[in-house]
């Protein structure tokens, strides 16, 4: 059959969305794959699309679930590469200086409360922001960026939960505790930064404005 029109390409994209292929980067690749396959078939576009999706649904979904796993691995690798960068070190030093300044002026209790306030403002705001993006741009989400927060959320909670209950009560130097606090805050900052970088990278790669 003839080369697919813009409207037919949108129909292919929608068909993929309907079977659960949500991330835009994989949908773009699969849309091209399905469209090229359909162009090589006889009969009408609608019939070819239905036939293709029906016969390959299992494979397409298998590919997508593997893709999600790979995206999570990629997200963690990218985050890790940012954590071992000079940028992270600069953030860590700056945050530590702020926490230390608070400690010097107000004492440990105040500094500890300040860290908690920052984290408790940062976390809900981040989740609200992600929720907003997911709601308003659900068809334009990129895999690696979107898998970042769900993948690291477990680690993040493990770092935040023991702050008050364990770290504060430990018989260690206040400086080590302050360093831990600074590290936790820096971790969240660099995660947000990584998210921004990934989104920017994918938007530029897939020419999404």
């Amino acid at each position, binding site marked *: 059959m003839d*080369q*697919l*029109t*813009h409207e037919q*390409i949108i129909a292919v994209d929608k068909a993929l969305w309907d079977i659960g292929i949500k991330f835009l980067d*994989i949908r*773009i*690749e*699969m*849309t*091209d*794959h399905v*469209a*090229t*396959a359909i162009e090589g078939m006889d009969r009408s576009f609608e019939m070819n699309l239905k036939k293709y999706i*029906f*016969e*390959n649904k*299992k*494979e*397409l979904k*298998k*590919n997508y679930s*593997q*893709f999600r796993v*790979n995206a999570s*691995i*990629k997200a963690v*690798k990218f985050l890790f590469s940012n954590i071992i960068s000079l940028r992270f070190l600069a953030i860590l030093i700056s945050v530590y200086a702020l926490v230390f300044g608070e400690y010097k002026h107000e004492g440990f209790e105040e500094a500890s409360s300040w860290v908690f306030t920052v984290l408790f403002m940062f976390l809900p705001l981040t989740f609200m922001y992600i929720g907003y993006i997911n709601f308003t741009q659900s068809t334009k989400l990129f895999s690696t960026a979107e898998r970042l927060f769900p993948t690291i959320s477990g680690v993040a909670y493990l770092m935040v939960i023991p702050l008050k209950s364990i770290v504060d009560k430990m018989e260690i130097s206040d400086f080590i505790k302050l360093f831990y606090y600074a590290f936790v805050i820096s971790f969240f900052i660099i995660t947000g930064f990584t998210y921004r970088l990934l989104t920017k990278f994918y938007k530029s*790669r*897939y*020419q999404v404005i």
Partner: protein
Amino acid sequence: MHKKIMYIFVIPNKQQMKNSQLYKGSLNTIIMKLLEENGRMYGYEITQKVKLITAGELNITEGALYPALHKLEADGFLDVEVEKVDNRLRKYYKLTESGTKETVNRLAELEEFIRNMQNLVNPTPNPDLQF
């Protein structure tokens, strides 16, 4: 009910089963070899090229091809270029410098594997080893 009956007809046939068992381990090498020969290729093109070379014997499915391509990309062996072609975006893959080196190694490994299998399946009598 209707859906269930239809699914029975798309269960992999004997040919596809053979493909998945014997070729699975060599898929990455096959992809890299094709990219080495053709410069850059997109997913569907790779499936069709393989089909053509093997005269329809080997059918690479989406579920096998794309995870392999994405893994090779994540490992730094493939580079990606996205271009607008025929009303849609197309993702092309090409070998990176380390991918080109890796292809040479993997092909050498594969050739050795084939030679060993050949010797095992169809041994030629070696006079030196005869007692």
